[in-house]
């Protein structure tokens, strides 16, 4: 049930708040697909923490929980050949691009059958077969290489586009600005998506930036720039649709700030002691899955029963991925230690 009073309160502090609406051209079937993808992301992330606690998964793991609408609204509009540049919080990006959660789970388990053959883990998940350029452990540093795939499309004259994600923290890496400048100068087919969850680990973004509207940075480079309510899958979808069309038509980059709020710890074991988490209470009212579900029911696009079935289906898929990673996959063999350092099977010790 929607708590309208709570939402009224929220509107006062969340300046990006936008009412939900049905955008033109988004049919019911596609909405159901997007809703299912969000649940798959959510269930996947919820499953990882206990696995981490149980020592099945290790290293750094950053959940995408409550940011699902962003990747879903944007990436589901891409074709297979389009590229996605990701962040350390990248599981959701991969799922939206059509990635295989069995292979992702196997990677988190460090298994040979994982996406990265157990070499990369959560922070480096990638699937080159679907243009998923990979997560990155160095914040902001993956943006320029992702823009490089847009450079390729520009040189080759294809209509492929690149969407590159970065956080409010990553936005402050110098090479992000440098990349935006080149993308604007050459009209590269790229969409810069700033997932502004207002925190970079323990740093409130307002403390380290002079202009809280991050989308205005795009404007500074001459890039059409927009701000979306990061919990509003419809608004993001419509904004991204226009951006993708522009990029495909060779009209250059777009910058989209999706403003949201980090509602969990930064990584699996971070309890956020450095901030007051009670501010998030109101935001849970509009977390993207609940919000889209309520909208679809209100607008008779789906019944509660249908939505519950979608959730259950997502859960089943995630359980199967755990079963697969845990019981059917293997530790990398020591014989393969030197594999992949060089290409084409070459080994240089």
């Amino acid at each position, binding site marked *: 049930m929607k708590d309208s009073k709570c939402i009224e309160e929220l509107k006062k502090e969340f300046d990006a708040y936008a009412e939900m609406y049905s955008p033109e051209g988004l049919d019911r079937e596609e909405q159901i697909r997007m809703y299912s993808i969000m649940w798959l992301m959510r269930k996947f992330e919820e499953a990882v923490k206990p696995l981490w606690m149980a020592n099945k998964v290790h*290293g750094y793991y950053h959940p995408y929980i409550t940011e699902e609408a962003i990747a879903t609204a944007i990436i589901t509009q891409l074709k297979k050949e389009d590229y996605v540049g990701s962040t350390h919080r990248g599981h959701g990006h991969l799922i939206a691009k059509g990635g295989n959660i069995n292979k992702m789970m196997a990677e988190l388990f460090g298994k040979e059958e994982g996406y*990265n053959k157990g070499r*990369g883990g959560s*922070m480096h998940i990638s699937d080159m077969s679907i243009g998923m350029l990979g997560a990155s452990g160095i914040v902001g540093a993956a943006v320029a290489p992702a823009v490089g795939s847009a450079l390729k499309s520009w040189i080759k004259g294809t209509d492929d586009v690149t969407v590159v994600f970065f956080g409010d923290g990553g936005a402050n890496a110098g090479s992000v600005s440098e990349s935006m400048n080149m993308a604007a100068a050459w009209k590269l087919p790229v969409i810069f998506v700033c997932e502004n969850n207002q925190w970079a680990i*323990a740093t409130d973004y307002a403390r380290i930036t002079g202009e809280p509207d991050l989308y205005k940075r795009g404007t500074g480079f001459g890039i059409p720039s927009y701000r979306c309510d990061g919990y509003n899958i419809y608004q993001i979808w419509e904004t991204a649709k226009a951006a993708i069309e522009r990029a495909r038509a060779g009209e250059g980059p777009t910058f989209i700030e999706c403003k949201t709020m980090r509602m969990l710890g930064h990584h699996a074991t971070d309890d956020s002691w450095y901030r007051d988490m009670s501010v998030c209470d109101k935001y849970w009212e509009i977390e993207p899955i609940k919000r889209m579900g309520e909208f679809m029911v209100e607008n008779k696009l789906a019944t509660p029963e249908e939505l519950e079935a979608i959730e259950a289906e997502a859960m089943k898929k995630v359980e199967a991925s755990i079963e697969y990673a845990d019981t059917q996959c293997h530790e990398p063999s020591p014989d393969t230690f030197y594999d992949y350092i060089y290409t084409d099977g070459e080994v240089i010790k």
Partner: protein
Amino acid sequence: MSIITLRESITQALREEMALDENVFIMGCDVGLRGNPFGITKGLMNEYGEKRVIDTPISEAAFTGLGVGAAIAGMRPLVEILYADWITLPMDNIVNTAAKTCYMFGGQANVPIVIRAPFGVGGGVAAQHSQNNENWFVHVPGLKVITPSTPYDMKGMLKSAIRDNGPVICFEHKRNYSVKGEVPDGEYLVPIGKAAIRKTGTDCTIVAYSYMTYVAEAAAKELEKDGISCEVIDLRSLLPLDYDTVMESIKKTSRVVVVTEAPLRGSIAGEIVGEIIDRGFDLLDAPPQRLGSKNSPVAYNEGLEAMCTPKKEDIIAAVRKTFE
């Protein structure tokens, strides 16, 4: 005397130097409110205010550059790079500005900056959070590079680094953070550029630094049971490097094994062996041995990660080899 962790010894050094010199300040990601991910700078922002402990944006290239500039202007910045892997981002300002300004300006300017960088393999955090980059900087004239491994050394050397009038990079092995050791209650300094003998011995010298010192000590202990007496040297400082202590030891033992956790190819282990040969080839009864990590990025998978670095057994085998 009190017994503290290496982590705490860093905090003590920072706190003391900040109290002594108002030009000393700290900057880095999450060093203030959060007190850095390892808790090292916790409380310092409350004590010294937001101008002496500065939370930065994720702009390593620029905030390290700012540190370099503030140092040239007379401050004593302590810049923290959360993981040494990302020291690549401010590389230009470290190598081309910090290291060379004094020289290029004919001695008109100093760059008294300290850069602290947690480094090393461990924890299954994969290839961009696990590197040993210390060797790169040993190649750059104008820098000093330290790698203290005990709380006593860390505190004393970090204080020396802060007072040094030139740029110093302090590499802190993440696996050493919980090492405990005695630290005097009063003020003391440990000079930069002097090695320490961790265990005396007569048969073979093991030269190591940082975490590998502990692995070398464990190997030496085991070899002792078999009647092989090793002398374990903790370099503590890679640039300058205390060859006098190394050569004194080799005079006694006539054998040497050099250990680094960095990938062996191009590492300081080769450089040390080269220098030993230049200085005292005739002292050696056996070819010097070098040990380092395999020439590979570090894997996420813990089995592959563990395969990467030199182990106690590897050091034992290398020592035995000097007797073949």
